[in-house]
């Protein structure tokens, strides 16, 4: 069984500043992927960033980067230079086998 925990139901950030969203997970699998998905009000789930568990190097995608701590089972998302369009629900997701397990989500608000 997999579990994913996001301890921050809501976060707020000033435009152009940096924010970090937290996530911890638990899995018995040795081979797995971790993702951050963004869900705006349109409900369209959009992949933000992906991390393969066997890779030690933290993934980066433009303004988005992760801090992957495998031993601690921690997978946080850092958003730099926050933009108004970043406002959305963010879900931390683990994948092992054929099932994506979602965390409860963090609602990110961006203040102009």
């Amino acid at each position, binding site marked *: 069984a997999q579990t*994913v925990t996001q301890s921050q139901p809501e976060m707020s950030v000033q435009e152009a500043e940096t924010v970090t969203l937290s996530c911890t997970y638990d899995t018995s699998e040795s081979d797995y*992927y971790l993702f951050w*998905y963004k869900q705006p009000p*349109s*409900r*369209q*789930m*959009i*992949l933000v960033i*992906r991390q393969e568990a066997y890779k030690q190097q933290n993934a980066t995608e433009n303004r988005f980067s992760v801090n992957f701590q495998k031993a601690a089972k921690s997978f946080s998302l850092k958003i730099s230079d926050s933009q108004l369009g970043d406002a959305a629900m963010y*879900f931390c997701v683990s*994948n092992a*086998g*054929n*099932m*994506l*397990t*979602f*965390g*409860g*989500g963090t609602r990110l608000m961006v203040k102009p």
Partner: protein
Amino acid sequence: GAGVSQSPRYKVAKRGQDVALRCDPISGHVSLFWYQQALGQGPEFLTYFQNEAQLDKSGLPSDRFFAERPEGSVSTLKIQRTQQEDSAVYLCASSRDRGYTEAFFGQGTRLTVV
């Protein structure tokens, strides 16, 4: 199509009515998944298909829920005798491979049972 398409976008059903939700995955995608997302929560896994084979239906909450993908492309999620607790957004996702390298999601169907 360019993305995963779900229809209808919104569905209001009277309690006890049967409903059918449709998912058109990205052409050529082998894997197809259904998720249920209650208001303010993360999506919960319902079922998984690899081509036309339903390999995992462990997340279906009751025998009123049934999913099919007869030709390995379009999938239908059917809910019989709907109840109020079935009200949620139903998300469909597809991926190219057997596993999850990246899953592409549709915009979901919001089901409201009254």
